[in-house]
């Protein structure tokens, strides 16, 4: 009876830790790191791979594509900026001088081609209430 029980516990631990190890292992491969505009510009390695940049939408930089879908704008950290093109419709929260996170890659012309864009509206709600509501990231403001 006792041996059986030990075998059982051992089996359970092995199964669970196996699943756990796989989950953690695969995890490291699917992480996407967030970088500031300055970090991005300073690191040529980043400029050759898929990555995320966070910053603000530069004032007076937003140009809607003719034909209606998609925008061009610049993401800035206040001093330097990166031109971005995003070929899909932007979320309601996207606006000039608002916080933005773009995921994508730099193209040959030095324009960051984003395939994912998160926008958040910094001014209106207190930080905590906002988080309480729902973090702006993935649900509300995200354009898929």
């Amino acid at each position, binding site marked *: *009876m006792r041996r*059986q*029980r030990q075998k*059982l516990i051992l089996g*359970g631990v092995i*199964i*669970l830790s196996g*699943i*756990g190890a796989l*989950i*953690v292992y*695969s*995890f490291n491969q*699917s*992480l*996407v*790191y*967030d970088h500031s505009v300055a970090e991005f510009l300073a690191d040529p390695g980043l400029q050759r791979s898929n990555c*995320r940049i*966070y910053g603000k939408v530069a004032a007076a930089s937003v140009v*809607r594509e*003719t*034909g*209606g*879908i998609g925008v061009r704008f610049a993401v800035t950290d206040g001093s330097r900026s990166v031109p971005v093109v995003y070929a*899909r*419709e932007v*979320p*309601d*929260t996207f*606006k000039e001088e608002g916080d933005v996170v773009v995921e994508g890659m730099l193209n040959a012309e030095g324009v960051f081609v984003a395939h994912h864009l998160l926008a958040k*509206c910094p001014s*209106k*709600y*207190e*930080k*905590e*209430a*906002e*988080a*309480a*509501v*729902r*973090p*702006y*990231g*993935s*649900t*509300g403001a*995200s*354009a*898929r």
Partner: protein
Amino acid sequence: MADLGYTCLLMALLCAVWGVLSSWLGHQMRHSELVRSGENAALAVAALLGLSSLSLIAAFLADDFSLLYVAQNSNATQPAVYKVAALWGGQAGSLLLWVFILSVYAAIVVTQNRRRHRDLMPGVTGTLLAVSSFFLFMLQFVSNPFEPLPRAAAEGTGLNPLLQNPFMAIHPPSLYLGYVGVSVPFAFAMAALLAGRLDNEWITTTRRWSLFAWFFLGIGILLGGYWAYVELGWGGYWAWDPVENASLMPWLTMTAFVHSVMIQEKKGMLKVWNLLLIIMTFCLSIFGTFITRSGVISSVHSFTKSSLGPWFAAFWVIVVLASVLLLVVRLPKLRTENTIESLLSRESAFLFNNILFIAIAFTVFWGTVYPILSEAIQGVKVSVGPPWFNQWIVPLGLSLIFVTGVGPLIAWRRASGQNLMRNFRGPIVFGLLTGLVCFALGVRHLRALTSFVLCAFVLATIAQELWRGTRARMKSAALGFLEGLTSLILRNKRRYGGYLVHVGMVMIFVGITGSSAFQQEVTTHIKKGESFSIGPYDLLFADTASSHDAHKDVLSATLEVSRNGRHVDTLRPEKFYYRDSDQPTTEVDIHGLFSWPPNLGDDLYTILVDNDPHGGGYTFKAYLNPLIAWIWLGGFVVIIGTHVAVLPEWSRVPLSRQRPAMEAPGVVS
């Protein structure tokens, strides 16, 4: 009004602390008057918090903008319903609601057990009031809903327009009923450990509480998903967002708990495991409250700045350490009465079910917590996207459906080949046939095919169980089919209610599979009179209209929808421009479950993205979400099933007449 509310909070804190002390002393000195005094303190806390909450609601209704919290979450033009709902629109009010619900539960528990479980009650009252004391302390010193502004504001900021939706108004209270409900079985578990009364008493007496908490957590999650679907305008209902994950984790461990307690009741096994599960669930529900309310998600830096964070973290650590320590001390009393004899047995099916739930909960936990830890420890911001979650949760979820089919039918102890043949031949054949039909209809998506096969398998096992049981009833009592079925269900409500919940969950899985595997989307920029199509639908952009009311300007577009050439619906997606917020909001329009006639096959989900004032073009986005309606329908079935499972056993039939039902294969409870 505010003074009354604040004074009530202070008195409630004093009462709660007294209740903890007197319960503890009463238990130590075997002094029943002191124990009673602790219980009375619990009643007083409930009354005081009721008054306090009422006075905050009154402040909202009276537009008392001299209070910071009211000014932040309401304004004078907000509809009265949302003035009340603004109570839980922010941090301090949510904490007040949390502890108010807890105090009501504590009062109910105390009243129910005036004469029962006397040796457990000091521990129960003490635990519930200790948790209350923590929240009351926070409300008193850290996040006070009655904090006055130095100078009264002329007008409030108003509730976030996204929250001004009926589903969002009831989603948080429902989740809270669940989060807080976990406290009751947890308190009984702690009391059992403290008193050393480690039989099944704490489990049987909290069975309904556990189901209650499980139920409201689940309904809260579904309501949240539905809200996201109809309000957020990205065509989906679940994004593996930290706040969603926070509510899913306790639901997962609670589901594991309501299953594994059956094994303890039946076989005296898994005793330590059940205690661990309820401790885990309670910790996760505190964690969930904390994650939603502390600002930790938007950034770790807002967490350390937030006054709430460190306190919550400290409380959390204390709860974990104290309850695990108590469990370790009592380990010698938690000997198992049986062991698993075979891999092919109901015991091991339940164990697998538990392992899968925990694995899913761990996956969600890791994906939610890692970004927080990474930012806190390494200072690097990272994101974990939905693809990673789906990669893991989908296979685990599919295994779970399989176990859902196997668990209730397989024999206890050791299943013979004969038992397996008898119970599973039919369902396996049915599942495979369903797979073939889906394949013939053009389904080539491997995960979706697997899911449909497994769902069909589970439904067939349940149908087979119902049919066999009903046939036995019809024979033994000479009843018709419907009477037989009804009497079968009423004779074992817990078991058949459980089956009904399983049916609902299978429907939800079907909906999730269809909408995630076969979603289509189209974005288009067109002018009035033009049309576009998605899947079987053609949408003609017929007209636009604009209107305004006191709060907002509305731009709406009319889309005439036809399916295979036949007109089926007229959709009006809109854009709202609230005057006191410079951010527009999207109002989607859906041809789906709540259209007339209801459309259960595939939701057509339309969004008016924006318009180009110069060129006259409008941008539309449309999603086709196959089978999504089954998620909401499944939710209704889960609601009905849970109600059946908790119905009281009102009819006591003489034992001799109960026999036939007991002989039905595979009695769960």
